């Protein structure tokens, strides 16, 4: 059973760590790009950007 638990812990924690790394990378990069170039954003219209 220890192998099963080890497999699950490694699998889920690696997926979680990768997901958090992507979110952090996205957050850092999106600060460098103008909001109107981030088409997925739904809050664009509400945000004052000066453009």
């Amino acid at each position: 059973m220890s192998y099963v638990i080890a497999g699950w812990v490694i699998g889920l924690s690696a997926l979680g760590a990768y997901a958090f790394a992507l979110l952090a990378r996205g957050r850092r990069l999106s600060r460098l790009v103008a909001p109107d170039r981030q088409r997925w954003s739904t809050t664009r219209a509400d945000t004052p950007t000066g453009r």
Partner: protein
Amino acid sequence: MTVPTNPSPDLATPSATASAPLLTSTSSRLTQVLGIGWAISVVLVVCAAFWWSEPDATQGELVRLFYLHVPLAILEYVPFLLCGIGSVLFLWKRSEWGDLMAHAGAEVGVVMCALTLVTGAVWGRPTWGTYWDWSDVRLVTTLILCLLFVGYLALRRVPGDPTTRAKQAAIVALVALIDIPLINRSVEWWENRTLHQKGTIAQGKIEDINAFATLLGFIMVGLGIAFLMTHRFRIAWLERQVDRVGLDDAIAHRRAEAATGVDASVGRTPEEGGQQ
């Protein structure tokens, strides 16, 4: 080299970013729904794997790792195939979206493939008696797939002309994809050279609550891939925008120099300056 210049850099100015706190991520309603769905499915599949499902008649408790390893092993092909589709779109139509999708698919695919190998090794030790078997064709061809796409990602980091690099990467991706049918058919073609069993899922050889746990595993990994792919694609898009802004900045810099006749970066004329 001379090119027509384009005056509209997309860089978010400090004042713009300061006033746009809500726009600092790759998240959207879609990814929020995917993320919540993924988190719920993780909880459900862990419950199904450890509490709701029964031990297997042969494997006993070890079958509980099946619900993670098998969905990873099968669905890892999805990001790689998206990488292949993106590569074809780039080579055929010079599609920028295709190139970005290819890059995102390769990275997510490598993560999934590496996890397939690791969870498989952990399962293999008590089941087969070894973490790794060099004569198992499925294992080795899966490792080769992972390595080929690691090479693809390394190739994408080599500095140079982005179009040439994207073209080379697309060709590497399409060559690497030839490995997928090899992995898939290896248990049939080299039956005596593989410890892997023939297709359990395809032949419906898993039933009842264990089949339900497997289905939940597929949903969990599928939602995870959708979530990761969406974020990774947006990151690739943002990286492309940042690169473009850098180029636009450089052009604006040269334009300023051309107007004043002074190398603005070092404060001297080209005649005085020579190489930087």
